């Protein structure tokens, strides 16, 4: 097996793995902080992809347009996520545990149905993508499209920035405080509802960015969302809930492993890998793989 083919497969795997990690970041952040299982996460991601594809066509298919689209969508989804949390999810926190969790499931599943249907009605159910014509970097015999190299760099940068924000800023401290002891944070003056809302918005913005990047590689339609949510859940559990570095590692590992499975065995079995791995890991580490927290 020539080395350059292996490298080519690995790079493809890293790219898709980076995207996986990006889906998972948002969901992991939301679940880790606000303990909300957002079933509509993948759907929001798909909608962002569809919107980006339409806007890209409308704005004249330039790299500048792409940057504007990513920024604009991230901002719009941030506000949408914050509003969604404050209007629909935050009031549930005042209920008892049972009602809060059931209410969250119903609300986010309802949102999933609504968002998917509205988008399909407005934009049509057909898959869309962002067609990029781009140059290719050659390193030996390995070809890397410039656009994909940029995407990888973007994912890496986003990871670093997020990690810094969460560990260094007062917002990040407040997030950790709210996660570890809600009441303790409140009496320090943390407005936990605002922290939850901002975090929900941030997670949704990350979904939007991931959606745009995803549409550069694969076509998306308004109904693809839920399978992406399932994939993101898998990665979160593999990487440890609330653990961004873990999610990145898990995403990359999955991407590369799937790429090799597809190449050496059969492409149709590649998706089985993540699920099988998830079940195995859960059996071996019932509290999550990246989660070293003591009982």
């Amino acid at each position, binding site marked *: 097996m020539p080395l350059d083919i292996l490298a080519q497969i690995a790079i493809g795997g890293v790219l898709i793995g980076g995207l996986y990690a990006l889906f998972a970041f948002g969901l992991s952040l939301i679940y880790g902080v606000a303990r909300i299982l957002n079933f509509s996460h993948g759907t929001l991601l798909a909608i962002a992809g569809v919107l980006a594809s339409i806007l890209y066509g409308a704005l004249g298919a330039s790299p500048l347009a792409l940057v504007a689209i990513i920024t604009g969508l991230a901002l719009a989804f941030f506000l949408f996520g914050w509003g969604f949390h404050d209007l629909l999810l935050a009031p549930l926190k005042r209920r008892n545990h049972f009602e809060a969790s059931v209410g969250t499931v119903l609300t986010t599943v309802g949102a999933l149905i609504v968002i998917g249907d509205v988008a399909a009605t407005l934009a049509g159910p057909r898959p869309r993508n962002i067609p990029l014509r781009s140059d290719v970097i050659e390193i030996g015999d390995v070809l890397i499209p410039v656009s994909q190299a940029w995407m990888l760099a973007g994912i890496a940068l986003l990871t670093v920035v997020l990690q810094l924000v969460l560990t260094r800023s007062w917002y990040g401290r*407040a997030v950790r*405080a709210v996660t*570890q002891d809600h*009441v303790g944070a409140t*009496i320090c003056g943390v*407005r936990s509802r605002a922290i939850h809302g901002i975090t929900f918005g941030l997670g949704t913005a990350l979904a939007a960015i991931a959606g745009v990047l995803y549409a550069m590689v694969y076509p998306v339609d308004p109904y693809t969302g839920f399978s992406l949510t399932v994939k993101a859940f898998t990665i979160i559990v593999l990487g440890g809930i609330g653990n961004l570095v873990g999610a990145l590692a898990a995403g990359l590992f999955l991407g590369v492993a799937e790429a090799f499975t597809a190449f050496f065995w059969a492409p149709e079995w590649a998706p089985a890998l993540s699920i099988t791995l998830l079940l195995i890991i859960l059996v071996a580490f019932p509290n999550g793989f990246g989660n070293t927290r003591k009982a």
Partner: protein
Amino acid sequence: MLSLDRIVVDHGKMRAIWDVSLDIQVGEKVGLLGANGAGKTTTLGAIQGLYPPQSGAITFDGQPIAGRPPAENVAQGIALVPEGRRLFPEMTVRENLEMGAYLRHARSDLRRTLEHILELFPILREKAGQHAGELSGGQQQMVAIGRALMSKPRLLLLDEPFLGVAPLVIYDVMDALRRVAESGVTILLVEQNIHRALDFVDRAYVIENGRNAFDGTRERLLGDPEFGAKFLGLD
């Protein structure tokens, strides 16, 4: 400085406080005593803003504060050392203390306040890099008190600060609290152990089933036969 006028607080369907009033002057050390479930913790929570009262008035510095969010109360100088300490177990002692200075008014002075607290509880200086979850009960309590002091409060609400603290350490904590009081911080102390509480405070309110039952200076309470029969086991 602080006054509660006939407050009523419900927890969901349960009424925790039926009718509680109290007044505290600047610089006092006041106790809030009573059996478990009498409503002491809820009273502190109502003052801090955790449990907005159904009715009744709470005034602090002459301003009505009932139902105001906790963050604003912290900013105005009320700090709570809560029941069960409520530390952040996976943050270091230093990070826990720094969280106490989360609000803008305290951030600028963070270094100086922190230094002051490490002088008050020297053991915390050694443990500064450890996770709060790994500390003993007494040390955790010191962190909780230190965290509350980081917000530079004028009124400190203490909810059973000696619970789960080894008896030998209780005296260290109590000494530190005396020094805090001497520095001009007003203290409202909730405590189960009535002897210990009366040892520390100038006067106390006793509540029973969510209502005021007794109040007065320690001498008056200790001299009251009815109080003695009910709470000191003298019958």
